[in-house]
């Protein structure tokens, strides 16, 4: 099954083409690394794959859905996102954030304790999200992905702000997800220590 097929995709933000005719096909599940300099369009590519942004021109199909308004919603139901903004609400605690997300997405709440243990936030369930450090917020985001078990994982610089243990955690989680049949697309500036990489994509000048 083709995971995603982008053909000459243009995405504009405030009349600026963040993606300028990008084409990329992900033929089968696996781990894919997106590289490129600052402002080259890595995050924009991830946003399109996540169904977050509408495309202005070109053809795009992700997880079998064309990226129309309804198609993008379907994609978002089946994909997971890890960016720089992990929690859903700063005024809620770690547990409340995950409980809210699991209720509205119908993910079993029983997965929470285990997920928090995996990201070493088990002792932080009652901490307000606003009091978490950047690395802990990232870990909270990972905990949600572990709970949600999406088919397509989109990780925007997942190693940023994480210590050595955190980076190892990301690599382990990614490894397990791919072993379970999911597709992981991640952007990075660093050398990746992932045990398995199925493809790399270089973004230059928005394509």
């Amino acid at each position, binding site marked *: 099954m083709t995971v995603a097929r982008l053909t000459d995709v243009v995405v*504009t933000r405030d*009349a600026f*083409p963040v993606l*300028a*005719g990008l084409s990329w096909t992900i033929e089968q599940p696996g781990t894919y690394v997106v590289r490129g300099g600052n402002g080259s369009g890595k995050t924009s590519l991830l946003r399109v794959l996540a169904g977050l942004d509408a495309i*202005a021109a070109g053809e795009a199909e992700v997880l079998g859905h064309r990226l129309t308004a309804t198609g993008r919603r379907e994609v978002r139901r089946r994909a997971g996102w890890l960016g720089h903004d992990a929690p859903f609400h700063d005024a809620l605690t770690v547990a409340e954030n995950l409980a809210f997300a699991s209720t509205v997405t119908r993910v079993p709440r029983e997965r929470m304790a285990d997920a928090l243990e995996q990201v070493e936030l088990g002792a932080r369930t009652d901490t307000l999200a606003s009091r978490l450090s950047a690395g802990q917020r990232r870990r909270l985001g990972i905990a949600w992905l572990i709970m949600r078990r999406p088919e397509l994982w989109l990780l925007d610089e997942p190693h940023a702000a994480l210590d050595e243990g955190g980076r190892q955690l990301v690599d382990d989680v990614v490894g397990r997800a791919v072993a379970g049949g999911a597709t992981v697309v991640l952007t990075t500036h660093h050398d990746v220590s992932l045990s398995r990489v199925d493809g790399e994509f270089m973004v*230059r*000048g*928005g*394509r």
Partner: protein
Amino acid sequence: MKNLWWRALGPVTLISLLLTGWLGLWVTPRAQQQGDFARLVYLHPAEAWVGIYLSFGTAVVASGLYLWPRTRRAAVDLVAASAMEVSVVFLVLTLITGSIWGRPTWGVWWAWDARLTSTAVMAVLALGYLAYRYSFDDPTRRAQRSAILALISAVNVPIIHFSVVWWKTLHQGATVLTPGASIKIHGIMAWTMLLSFIAFTLCFVWMTRVRYLIARRAQDGARTRLASAIAARQSEGGV
């Protein structure tokens, strides 16, 4: 042939407006009660017709057509925007002439007349649409969201109108003085009034078309700029 029609539209509009002015100012008689003020009957009702019904209605219908997938075209969205701009012009003209006309009847410029008040609210509604519209950079998003706002506003127009009419009549008794109510229209006056409706309708078509052509040119310009921005963006990568 089609082109010829469009080319004739400007001059025909101008001639019909001048003819309305000539008939209204010199040929028609003075009214017995209101004197020369009654000549606003050749201006104000036609302006209200264009501002409230014709142009606002065109904008709303075009917005609806844009939201309907089968009739979704960029041109339809531009027609909606152009007609709404014309609507604002005529709504403001309606308010000004209505206020001038009401002055001798009411003794004040603004007497909270139900129709004028709901027209004023409608003018703000139309201005809100334009302000909303021009706050977007992305043309597709602008078109979709503005169309939704136009339709929501359209649902509101009759509700606003009836609420203001109710408010007025229930508040102060049903003795609403309406300027022009005491004028009997006949003969040359009726023909002049009819002509004013035709002239202003033509004026609406002409103004909307000119505004549409300007908007289309601006859109073509934006498209060209986007194409060169895409080329510039691609060359960042040093292909």
